[in-house]
């Protein structure tokens, strides 16, 4: 099971990102847990400056925008 974290200070884009990851994972039949990380100290520890950012199994895969659907599918398929 993949542990996915969406980093961001709680703005609309971060919620959208988390929602679309959950939806796509469900469609693909991939089991994931998506958590939203809003604590700035934690966000800082991933060295991220532009949010929303996506961390999968403790590895930063994306930052600065809402990811595209095909990007998300690619992450989930790995």
């Amino acid at each position, binding site marked *: 099971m993949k542990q996915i974290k969406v980093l*961001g*200070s*709680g*703005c*609309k*884009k*971060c919620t959208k990102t988390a929602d679309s990851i959950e939806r796509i994972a469900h469609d693909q039949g991939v089991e994931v847990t998506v958590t939203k990380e809003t604590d*700035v*100290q934690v*966000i*800082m520890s991933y*060295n*991220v*400056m*532009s*949010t929303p950012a996506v961390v999968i199994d403790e590895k930063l895969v994306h930052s*600065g*925008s809402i990811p595209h659907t095909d990007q998300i599918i690619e992450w989930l398929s790995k």
Partner: protein
Amino acid sequence: MFEIFTQLANWLTYSIFNLSPDSKLGDAVHFFIEDVSKIYVLLLVMIYAIALLRASLNIEGVRDYLAGKNRGVGYVLGAGFGAITPFCSCSSIPVFLGFTSAGIPVGITMSFLLTSPLINEVAILLLMSLLGWKFTLLYIVVGITVGILGGLFLDTIKAERWLQSFAAKALADGKNKNATADSIIDSSQEDSKLSFSERHEFAKDETLEIFGRVWKWVIIGVGAGAALHGFVPDGWIEQHLGDGQWWSVPAAVLLGIPLYSNATGVIPVMESLINNGLPIGTTLAFCMSTVAASFPEFILLKQVMQWKLLATVFLLLLVSFTLVGWIFNSFSSFL
């Protein structure tokens, strides 16, 4: 070049809606249609064009570039990058911490953060089309100057004393790293050349994203402008808030700081206020304070700053925008 929008507004207002050009309502509707259509077209074209050019510029690159610079040029560069780098205000905390933990002084970071919302391509574009190039140039110069001097001031009073402790620690760590290792900058951000199709993808996303965010601000801003334009009696503003009243500038700033708008919404209002006779300095002061600061943003900044520093930033903005207003009111005859 912009006449087509006037003609569109003529046609819609007078032929389709059948309003009289002499009525207040006709006047306001005409203003609304002309400005909204003009702004929408300009936004779509210009955001796309500018995004194509700046597809390879990112905030990490700016940080790495600023990290090695000495203070003198740091403020100027910080404010300059603030003007050209886009970022969403919801990112201001991560950006603040990212800069801080790279050992960049608080003042330089604040130069960046203060200038960023004030100056961006959308603001410049709207100013050019609605208020002309002289005013635009003035706005840019003032915005960058406030950023530079604000940052310089915060470092002079050693504002880093008033960071929240974890942010202060990150700053100290970053500075140590700068002093010991000559390169903290890992070159993971090598200059990757972008292909045209990648640039196009980026620009398309940017255009949709920014337009999706600002279109409603345009309606609100132009709507407020149109209401002012059509319904506030001619001369009322001039009489009550004209040059004679020195207090009108600080009052406008105090009113503007808690109000939140972005540049897109407020510029059409500026156009209308100036046309209605509000002095240029007062208008500038009001609008800059609306755009530069807002309560939601202060609440976010509380995560990294203590109250003392927040209050200092608030006062700093209040004083600088008031000065801007007074200075421009006294020089307005040259514009």
